[in-house]
């Protein structure tokens, strides 16, 4: 099992830009056709700064960590043994094309089930705008099999 001393570990923050092409590809991948998520004019007409990133686009920003999957590196497991078992988002503002955000991930819990054969890690990533305001929070639960 993983050492609980890592609970509270905060990874280095990193900056990301919400790129137009990235949002377009994401919308295509999920089949999103809502005009505010695909069309700049329609988004502005509806009162948004620009094209609105779909609700779960945050996942693609979190994955842009330069320390790609930092939890796996810190705790020492292989990505192939990971199952994503839970995901939660809280939204405090909008994320639009052109936004620059600072992300920081923290391990908030580590626990085991089934006599220690299944390891769980919960982490939170805060997404902040350049003013330092919290725009969204991503809370992810992964399960790691022994392997």
């Amino acid at each position: 099992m993983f050492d609980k001393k890592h609970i509270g570990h905060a990874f280095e923050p990193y900056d990301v830009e919400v790129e137009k092409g990235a949002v377009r590809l994401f919308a295509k991948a999920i089949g999103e056709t809502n005009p505010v998520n695909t069309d700049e004019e329609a988004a502005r007409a509806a009162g948004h700064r620009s094209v609105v990133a779909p609700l779960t686009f945050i996942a693609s920003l979190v994955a842009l960590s330069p320390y790609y999957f930092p939890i796996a590196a810190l705790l020492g497991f292989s990505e192939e043994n990971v199952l994503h078992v839970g995901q939660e988002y809280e939204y405090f503002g909008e994320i639009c094309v052109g936004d620059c955000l600072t992300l920081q991930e923290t391990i908030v819990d580590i626990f085991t089930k089934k006599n220690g054969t299944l390891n769980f890690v919960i982490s939170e990533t805060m997404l902040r705008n350049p003013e330092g305001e919290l725009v969204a929070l991503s809370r992810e639960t992964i399960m790691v099999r022994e392997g």
Partner: protein
Amino acid sequence: MSAKTFDEVEVGDLLEPLTLPPIDRLSLALYCGGSNDHNPIHIDPDAAQSAGLDGVIAHGMLSMAFVGRLLTSWVEQRRVRKFSCRFVGMMMLGDVPMVSGEVAEKIQKDGENLVRLTLSLKDETGQEKVSAEALVAFS
């Protein structure tokens, strides 16, 4: 938008369900690129096999994205305060994602009107793969 005013929304109201095309390799490849999730178990059968799976599995987050589409087809995205999912089963190639949702609760808290929805993604046999919840604000 099919969502109405807070007074018009009633517990038990059903969202118009959404059925997606069957999961295929192209959709997984697109989502791999689009999401920056390059875990090979979603696109490489060899990697899936060495991880003890019968074949590539769809990204749980692709299923969550489908649930999100149902949510924002019902209400403007800017009113979504919270959206959470538990991934309770794996989606494999050929599975048909079917998303449904229901108004579970109306909450008045700190001067804000909130509606809690329960949402679900099942395959074509009715087996649940994603169990989700959302909190949506109404004026």
